[in-house]
């Protein structure tokens, strides 16, 4: 397995849906490849950071406007 092969299947690896033999190949590659270990670690962290950054709450004043908007149209 090359670095290219590893990166192509990283998402499936993190989702734990790779066939066991391919996951084992990937882990063998990772054990000997510092760039791919760095790539996996930063890819995984990027996924978490992107999610944290996008986890917004709807502002309270917007909720109040939504409530008024709907009530005005449903009365």
């Amino acid at each position: 397995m090359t670095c290219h092969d590893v990166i192509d299947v990283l998402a499936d690896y993190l989702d734990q849906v790779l066939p066991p033999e391919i996951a084992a190949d990937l882990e063998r590659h990772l054990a000997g490849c510092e760039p791919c270990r760095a790539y996996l670690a930063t890819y995984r962290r990027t996924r978490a950071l992107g999610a944290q950054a996008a986890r917004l709450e709807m502002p309270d004043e917007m909720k109040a406007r939504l409530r008024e908007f709907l009530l005005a149209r449903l009365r």
Partner: protein
Amino acid sequence: MTSDEHLLLQNAAAGDPSALETLMSRYSGRVYRLAHGITRNPADAEEIVQDVFLQMVRKGTGFEGRAALASWIYRVTTNVALNKRRGKRYEVETSLEDFLPTYEADGHRAGPRAFLVANWSERPDAELLSGEARRTLEAAIDRLPEHYRAVLILRDVEELSNDEVAAAVGDSVSAVKTRLHRARMALREILTRRLGPSA
């Protein structure tokens, strides 16, 4: 749809404030996050939330029994948000090709070794989610095409399965997986250029 949701929609359609309140507390956050994630604009996201809720309540009990309300909400929100974006594309969006890994003929990644082994993943949230790093992350998300942002939000924030995301965006599972992976790789690359190897 559950009988509880059926009753809520029926009551909301009749203008019952407490039914509306319950629907809002269950779903407005999800609609807002997805709408904002796609449009990256709070005012547009607010219009979309209003539009989706009005459609939902007016549709009322017309939902088919099999359809989960949440699935319908994700699908309609995605459609409305992408349609709104269609009218005003922003120039900041660029091709992702410049931010995807490149390889040597033998399959090794191309580039200076110091960059290839840069690993900023252990840095604390406080550093990565504030200041310059946060601005870099937000700007990187802005640069993604909206279809990619839709998939990223549905999968990584709302934690839907690939199948559920495919149903929401009206694409194949394989297209969803490709977009998701490319979006994450592009964000990773932009962050790494900012955070490593010497930063």
